[in-house]
């Protein structure tokens, strides 16, 4: 029983090691090293698009159920072949480039959006020993690479020569830069407690007994998680933070002038970003692949999918933010909250357990009360113009 459990847990790692051992029989060492990289790379390159395809289906199904409809159910059983049909449709569409567009940048932008989205997969710990590259600066790498996504989006909006595109691009730049600040700061407590930037080490510190010592079970963890998750939702342009592609205001925002496979690439990047951001959120606060009984990769994918379902739930529920509300939420609410949260984490570390709970909850309550009071909308008193009548 124990053996079967650990075998299923390590099945992918064992498979890779077996292939490499087989190659090592009759090939020089440097080719084996190269093969190791290629195997991980190919696994990620296949995983990314497949995840994207089935996330679109999941999203359409769940949103449909929320709106009391079935969602796609015609192609294949339960509509399981729908993503493939969509893919064929996208490939056969005409590729339209605006006459006055900057042709080279217009072509480069969708390609460049997909690259960072795929690069983030490298540091996501999918399971025990299943990080493609266990960088010791894993989280820093994630922040750096995910911030590149602004650039191709802005390239797309600028090169399209379309006012809607440009407005969408401007909004994207403003929104993504704003939300990156609280997102990074929200993750700082997790890094402080695990004393490492490596995503694998962050997961390992959350082991405890039964693998249930997750950071979310502490006051700073839950605050950090909520802030990080909200920022992650904003980072991948998902509702209610979908101002860059607000269809009712901007046609489609930055990808207005894109069609066919280029458009599909933007979508692919968006969904892969959603997946990796949820994966990183699960890694930082929900214990990554830690968990009792089930294989580690099942835990990881379960947690990530649960977070994605919450994102879809958000989309089915909330209307879009107004631009000034969006900015105010990031700078005036989330940012101070994360700063206090970092302080709280330090207190938690250096005080005894019960006192720590008391302190944390008091400080958090006071902070929330203060932030709500400070963020209150100022409504001027109604004035009577005596001389007007």
């Amino acid at each position, binding site marked *: 029983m124990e053996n079967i459990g650990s075998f299923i847990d390590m099945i992918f790692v064992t498979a890779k090691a077996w292939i490499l051992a087989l190659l090592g029989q009759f090939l020089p060492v440097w080719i084996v090293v190269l093969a190791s990289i290629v195997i991980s790379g190919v696994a990620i390159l296949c995983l990314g698009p497949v995840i994207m395809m089935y996330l679109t289906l999941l999203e359409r199904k769940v949103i449909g*159920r929320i709106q009391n409809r079935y969602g796609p159910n015609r192609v294949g059983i339960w509509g399981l072949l729908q993503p493939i049909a969509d893919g064929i449709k996208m490939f056969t569409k005409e590729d339209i480039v605006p006459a006055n567009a900057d042709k080279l940048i217009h072509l480069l932008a969708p390609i460049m959006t997909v690259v960072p989205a795929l690069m983030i997969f490298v540091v996501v710990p999918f399971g025990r020993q299943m990080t493609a590259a266990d960088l010791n600066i894993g989280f820093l790498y994630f922040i750096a690479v995910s911030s590149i996504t602004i650039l191709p989006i802005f390239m797309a909006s600028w090169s399209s020569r379309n006012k809607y595109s440009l407005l969408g691009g401007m909004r994207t730049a403003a929104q993504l830069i704003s939300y990156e600040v609280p997102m990074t700061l929200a993750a700082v407590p997790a890094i402080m407690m695990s004393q490492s930037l490596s995503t694998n080490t962050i997961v390992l510190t959350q082991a405890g007994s039964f693998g249930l010592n997750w950071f979310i079970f502490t006051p700073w963890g839950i605050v950090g998680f909520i802030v990080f998750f909200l920022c992650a939702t904003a980072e991948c342009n998902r509702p209610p933070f979908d101002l860059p592609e607000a269809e009712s205001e901007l046609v489609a925002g930055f990808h207005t002038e894109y069609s066919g496979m280029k458009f599909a690439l933007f979508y692919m990047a968006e969904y892969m970003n959603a997946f990796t951001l949820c994966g990183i959120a699960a890694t930082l606060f929900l214990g990554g692949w830690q968990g009792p009984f089930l294989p580690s990769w099942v835990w990881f994918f379960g947690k990530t999918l649960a977070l994605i379902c919450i994102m879809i739930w958000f989309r089915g529920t909330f209307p879009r933010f107004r631009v000034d509300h969006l900015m105010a939420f990031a700078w005036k609410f989330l940012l101070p909250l994360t700063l206090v949260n970092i302080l709280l984490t330090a207190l938690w570390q250096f005080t005894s357990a019960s006192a720590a709970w008391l302190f944390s909850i008091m400080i958090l309550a006071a902070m929330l009360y203060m932030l709500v009071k400070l963020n209150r909308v100022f409504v001027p008193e109604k004035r009577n113009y005596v001389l007007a009548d």
Partner: protein
Amino acid sequence: MIFGAGVFKGMMVTLKNFLTSYYRDRDNGGIFTVQYPEEREKLAENYRNLPFLVYDGAPDQIRCVACGICERECPPKCIHIEMATDAAGKPARKPAVFDIDYSLCMNCGICEEVCPFDSIYMDHTFEITSQAGPRSLIRGKEALARSNDYFRKIRPAMAAAVDQKRKTAEDKKKAAATPPPPQEIK
């Protein structure tokens, strides 16, 4: 009131919708979709679509007498009637040609209302699409003929009323034809 309570309230509403869509029926918060080709909504009895001609008995015995009232009243002029002639060249009380252009018909039902011979009624069929172009939607007399049983099936209340009316009219006619029994003179 806790700050942000409205957010959770909204999320609970959508969660409830999501969950009830799996086990409730459509009138109690379940799924609204009718999976059209496999499932169909029951049409209301007074649903009206393209017209058809009613016959009693054999399909060539349509009730229509080619009076041409519907042809004149039809707003988009989609009905075309030519009266048949008998061997002597005298007009017979039935149509030689009765064409309705379904591509032109606007489903108003005026023909049904003006017909004094209860012969033209609106049908319940709507799946008449064809790839052969609008010409293929011109229906002749034979294609338009439907039995009275069919009429009773799709619109039972209306058909019963019409049958009743025709029966009384016939009875009256019979009564008029046979001389009344001599009354006793006191």
